[in-house]
């Protein structure tokens, strides 16, 4: 993809990222981006990291 990468934080949720080709996680593993906009997990609890899988919602409910 060409053009700038845009990052939009969602309150109590993931970061929406547009325009990225690859996301590199904390272990240095590259995850190719295959959709026009991806949701990156910021709560750390996703079972599909680096992607958000909506687990953040169960966390919020139980606190």
């Amino acid at each position, binding site marked *: 993809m060409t053009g700038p990468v845009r990052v939009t934080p969602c309150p109590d949720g*993931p970061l929406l990222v547009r325009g990225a080709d690859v996301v590199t996680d904390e272990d240095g593993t590259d995850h190719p981006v295959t*959709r026009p906009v*991806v949701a990156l997990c910021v709560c750390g609890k996703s079972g599909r990291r680096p992607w958000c899988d*909506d687990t953040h919602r169960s966390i919020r409910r139980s606190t």
Partner: protein
Amino acid sequence: MELPTPRGPVSAHVVHALRSGDAFEPAVAASADVLGDDAQVALWVLLQLHYRDFDDAARDAEWDVGAVALRQTLAESFVDRLRGLVTERVALARDAADDVPGQVMAMIGAADGPSLAAYLHREATREQVLSFLRQRSLYALKESDAHSFVLPRVHGSVKVALAELQYDEYGAGRPDRLHAGMYAEALVAAGLDPRYGRYVDEVAGPVLAVDNLISVLALQRRTRAASLGQLAAFEATSSLPSRRIAAGIERVGLPRAVAAYFDEHVEADAAHEQIALRAVCGALVAAEPELADDVLFGAAAYLELDERSAVHLLARWRDDEVVEAAS
């Protein structure tokens, strides 16, 4: 596809008119229970004219004046009936937050119906999982098509966000990732028939009602905001359930390829939820605040009918088990 088997006088009239070419009589709908199977089959057939052909219809009736009049009689009484059923959901959401994304999420959080996904995850038999796949097929084999009718009716950043979401539903440039196509592949992998409309005769009335709501709201310009509220409620109740359904599919020993469609929706709908709530509904209401109530109505009507369909299917499946246990 073939015309379905009628379930009462209204659907019998619609099927007869299409098959024979005789005129439609909008008055036949007057006394029908609009949430009943008969009216929902009739409405479903009339709505399909905008998506697909019936192989056994005598003519193309998409814009036949009588067909449109009958469809609107049914559609309007359906929407009126739903307005009466969701006043509490809407009032609760309105009080819970001051922005539309927060209100829709509060409405979802307050919904306390039974979880079909939890049952599929832990308890369903293999035959019940297959039955679920057939019930879901009417919507999923034309997944997202309804909301493409809304695109020309919204503007600016709302149109951009809806197009972005739809592009992902339509495979993001890769035909093998077209969601409706992935569902057809899931059906084939499960040994089922992937042709659209193939299972309509066994689809329960409350499940037809969900599919009809989605089409009715999307096909009328005046309910465009309700359609987008419906979309947001759908996307925001998909990621976590999709994970459970995929796990249930594996538990009963169906091939991995059957679960792939649901796996895709874990990640896709975690992103679509945010887009639909914020960039679509939030932005729509920021630009046109008078549409806020319509957005909430669409979300509430979807949650109401989705809950009714879950209650219905769970009761049906639990009855199966009682029968099996007794035999």
